[in-house]
């Protein structure tokens, strides 16, 4: 009887230490989200035969973002504007601005493992997913919570997501995206995690389409600044030209 009581007490204490899925997601948001930020980055696309690097700088404010590509020469001057759920691209080669919509959103961004739709993906997962902390696991020598998210609404791209979240720093180290059938479709790994100001932030994010060959796409953060003041004109279509 005493043994059972001890076991119950222990279980209760473990359960109380384990946060809810919603809490974990909120802690992640508190660590990583900001009203605005500036990011200078490199995107390394590892194809089946060769790799190529695309440099860009982005200004992000809420659900809006403006990105300008800096290198290579072929992509230099290409600009991308995201306003809420709409996306426009300006190509200097054609001197045209086009809106990426409908089926085009499902195309790959410059041959990477990311689609335009992935870029438009609303980071606010708590609205669309029921999150549950399923288990605790050591991943890359770090104690992690594993958060399973099952779609609450039907209009989501991925039926299920799985997050490995650092218990101490509340930053995801890995995310897996699954199809309705349960097939693993995409994997994202966040590495080179450093304290940037008051936030833990990854220096390298690797996206991998698990169904195709290739080494995936690496997103390397060269410079990041949080809570920056973004000029108003930058988040308008006029800034594309």
């Amino acid at each position, binding site marked *: 009887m005493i043994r059972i009581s001890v076991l119950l007490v222990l279980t209760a204490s473990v359960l109380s230490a384990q946060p809810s899925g919603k809490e974990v997601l909120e802690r992640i948001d508190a660590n990583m989200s900001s009203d605005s930020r500036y990011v200078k980055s490199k995107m390394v696309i590892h194809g*089946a035969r060769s790799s190529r690097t695309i440099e860009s700088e982005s200004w992000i404010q809420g659900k809006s973002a403006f990105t300008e590509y800096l290198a290579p020469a072929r992509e230099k001057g290409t600009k991308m504007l995201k306003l809420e759920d709409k996306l426009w691209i300006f190509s200097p080669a054609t001197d045209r601005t086009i809106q990426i919509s409908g089926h085009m959103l499902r195309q790959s961004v410059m041959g990477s493992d990311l689609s335009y739709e992935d870029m438009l993906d609303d980071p606010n997962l708590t609205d669309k997913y029921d999150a549950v902390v399923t288990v605790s696991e050591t991943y890359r020598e770090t104690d992690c919570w594993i958060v399973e998210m099952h779609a609450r609404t039907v209009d989501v791209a991925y039926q299920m997501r799985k997050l490995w979240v650092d218990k101490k720093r509340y930053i995801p180290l890995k995310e897996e995206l699954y199809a*309705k059938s349960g097939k693993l479709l995409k994997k994202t790994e966040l590495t080179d995690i450093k304290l940037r100001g008051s936030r833990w932030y990854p220096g390298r994010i690797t996206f991998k389409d698990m169904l195709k060959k290739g080494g995936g796409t690496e997103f390397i953060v060269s410079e990041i600044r949080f809570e920056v003041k973004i000029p108003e004109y930058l988040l308008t279509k006029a800034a594309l030209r």
Partner: protein
Amino acid sequence: MIAIKLAIRNLLGAGLRTSLIVIVLSVAYFLIIFMNGLYQGWERQAKIDMKAWEVGEGQYWQENFDPYDPITLVDAHAAVPELFLPAVRAGNAAVILYTQATIYPEGRMLGIQLKGINRGQTVIKIPSSRLTAPEGEIPAMIGSRMAKSAKLKEGDDILIRWRDVNGTFDATEFRIVSVFSTSVPAVDVGQVWIPLEIMQQITGMTGEATMIVRGRKADLPVEVPGWKFRDHAFLFADLDAIIRTKSIGGSIFYGIMLALALLAIFDTQVLSIFRRQREIGTYISMGMTRRQVVGLFTVEGAMHAVLALVVAAIYGVPLLLYLQRTGMAMPEGTDEFGIAAAERLFPYYSTALILGTVLLVMIATTIVSYMPARKISKMNPNDAIRGKIQ
């Protein structure tokens, strides 16, 4: 009659010159009939094949469907109207549901159209009845071009990723149960066919379709709310345009041959009138009107076309019949342009084509023979009989 006799005598008397003109003109006859026959044969065969494999007796498109705009596919689906159901059940209407998907043969990413088709249909030759598989496997079928480009064969498993009606990703493996061969790339290139009910289930589009192909025995109205009927004139418009363009291109080739022959006839006529002034003067002085003499020379020129027709018939008829029987191999890769074309093309020589060609060459030859002969009407018979240059 006298004009014809004289014309034949003069032409045969000209020997080599007449022979050369007649040979070139006969080649023009042959080429016009052969090349147009080839295009007519292609058109005929392509339309028969397209009807058999793709268009049936016309298609009903869901109102949002536009085959040239893949973006429309997301919204191009609706419940199959009640009035189609008896025809569908009797196999007289083929129900097809489309969606964009991606396959990963050997880890490569290939965009495709995933199409569901009702197994019981007998409207088009897509062998939908072969879409069966043991429990636990999902059957899929591809054309031989798709099999070649994706390096797939019967019995292979293929991973397909698609989105359901709400845009949620799904992916699973399908078993290739059949690889069919068709001369219509529009039902083959970049496509994977699966049973309709499975397609409706995995996309969440239960009872829905993108297109309904009408069969010969289906008694269906043209106007159906929410659906647009596309008849043969509409569905064959692209093929007609391609063949028309090809035909114009081909006409340059035989046009050159015809122009050469006509130029030679024109030259011959000019030379004849110059050299035979005394003869012309004699005809007129013997009582022939100028008009009769013009007619004589025109008939003489036009007789080239008659002789060429005889020569062309001697070597052309057996050759054209041989080609009609054996056909001609299409160049490698022609079908990859998306045009319906069988491996061998069998020319088709219609009566209208043969009569039209004969008439065209005859009229053209008569015109170029008449033009220089008009000068005769202005000749002074006294000067002509003396051989004075006019």
